[in-house]
């Protein structure tokens, strides 16, 4: 989780932006809910408060949906990307996202992509690449640079493969959506 935010900041940096990533510093035990933040700007980032009104939300663990109000503060029409095999409807979020623009919503079976390419249930990188595609804010190439900054050898290769598949999956879905919109 924390690594994902850090890599997001590296990818943004690679594209010439200022970026600031930081964890929520919650209780330091494995399994505890963790929040990490990332700000991206074209100016120096001086603000040090936690992000209370995000433009985008990436949910790594959908079981948290039942435990805490993960959507608290999310800006209206913000990007939502959830690591799940299910749809928003199946997650019981139909009402919440009813008026949301479809091109801001995405679910991605990121654990499966991690297992497939890295051999471990690590959803970080596929989610990051998925977010890059969903938001259109970052190139796949920048995500790959961030992967190479954090990992090396086979792990880096596997993560790049996972990122590429995630990016293309989300991009293809976005294209389908815009076709639907055009035909509607």
């Amino acid at each position, binding site marked *: 989780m924390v690594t994902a935010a850090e890599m997001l900041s590296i990818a943004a940096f690679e594209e010439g932006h200022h970026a600031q990533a930081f964890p929520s510093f919650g209780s330091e035990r494995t399994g505890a809910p963790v*929040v990490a933040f990332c700000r991206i700007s074209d100016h120096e980032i001086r603000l040090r408060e936690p992000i209370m009104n995000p433009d985008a939300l990436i949910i790594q663990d959908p079981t948290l949906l039942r435990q805490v109000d993960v959507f608290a503060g999310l800006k209206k029409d913000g990007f939502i990307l959830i690591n799940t095999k299910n749809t928003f409807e199946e997650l019981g979020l139909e009402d919440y996202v009813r008026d949301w623009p479809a091109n801001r919503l995405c679910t991605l079976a990121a654990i499966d992509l991690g297992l497939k390419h890295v051999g471990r249930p690590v959803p970080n990188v596929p989610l990051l690449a998925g977010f890059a595609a969903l938001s259109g804010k970052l190139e796949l190439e920048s995500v790959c640079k961030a992967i190479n900054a954090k990992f090396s050898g086979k792990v880096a290769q596997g993560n790049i493969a996972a990122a590429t598949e995630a990016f293309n999956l989300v991009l293809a879905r976005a294209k389908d959506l815009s076709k639907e919109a055009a035909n509607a």
Partner: protein
Amino acid sequence: MLKQIEGSHAVAEAVALCRPEVICAYPISPQTHIVEGIGEMVKSGEVKNCEFINVESEFAAMSVAIGSSAAGARTYTATASQGLLFMVEAVYNASGLGLPIVMTVANRAIGAPINIWNDHSDSISQRDSGWIQLFAETNQEALDLHIQAFKLAEELSLPVMVCMDGFILTHAYERVDMPTQEQVDAFLPPYEPRQVLDPADPVSIGAMVGPEAFAEVRYLEHEKQMRALELIPRIADEFKAGFGRDSGGLVRGYRLDDAETVIVAMGSLLGTIKDTVDEMRAAGVKIGVLGVISFRPFPLAEVRAALKGAKRVVVVEKTFAVGIGGILATDIRTAMDGISILDYTVVAGLGGRPITKKSLHALFDKAVHDDLPALTFLDLDWNIVNKQLERERQKRRSGPVAENILRDVGSSHVAQHS
């Protein structure tokens, strides 16, 4: 070279560029990533001629640092919170002996109640230890201050603490400009000790001094810190000439021209304050900021010069002296002695409580209307406080405070971090 890296790692790389010869440290959050980073660089051979010594405690860390510094080695360590308290006896010895050790304090609250999050209680508790204390506003400044700290420490033969906000800076990934080895080498000459344990020219270091000379030794420590007041800006100027950026110095003003209200603070909080002040300036409020970089020695003259045109000063500090109030505020008041300026003390961000722009806006709005009490605890939840006070009034065995309050707060504590 621009890099997007964690604050801790930026500091580790900066320390490595300073060619340290002995590094001894004991891990404690949020300092751990720094010494882990340097440890890896020593092991890989990236840092040459350096011994990384694993020690069994912080007390041992500072004791080893004292020994290696006295033996003429450029010495570095890092700690935080309880770790700093555990090494205190040796901390005073390092400064009393005049040994130019550089230590990062990744600022964290002190228990009890135990708390791993950021405030300034740890290094401020060592305010009178004789160490120089420099506070970094950003990760860039944190790494720059380490390079300056070795030069300052060795020139004066006095130890220097570089204080950086735990987690908020140490664990934040942001852009830093990492200097080259050539740049650092040109700025920081090899360590030439003023005193050294050398078998070829034996001396003893650490004599017992009685009433006949103790005050003189102590006074000379003070005199060194007074010299640091001249040296710190000079080193910052040299740094600017070599590295091309402003970092360090004694104080740094922001939008102080014609400011009627000046907010004073130290560390990373200055960023959020500056953003708030920009918005208030845009709305026509004459408000500015004074950042204190050098907390010890305390730059009385520079603070006085920066504040003398103001109508009021608001000192926002991440620690406080139980039983009286502000600590930095007391020093600021000393600097303003004899000039008539209203002053307000605000205690904020204790134990990692986020300091938000929203809260600062409300606070500064009140301040500019002189509608603040002398001492404010920012965002203090009075319901929680009053509930516990009532409990204590009602029942003799009212139980442990922290546990009671955690029960009162209940699950909202979890929600706060979500």
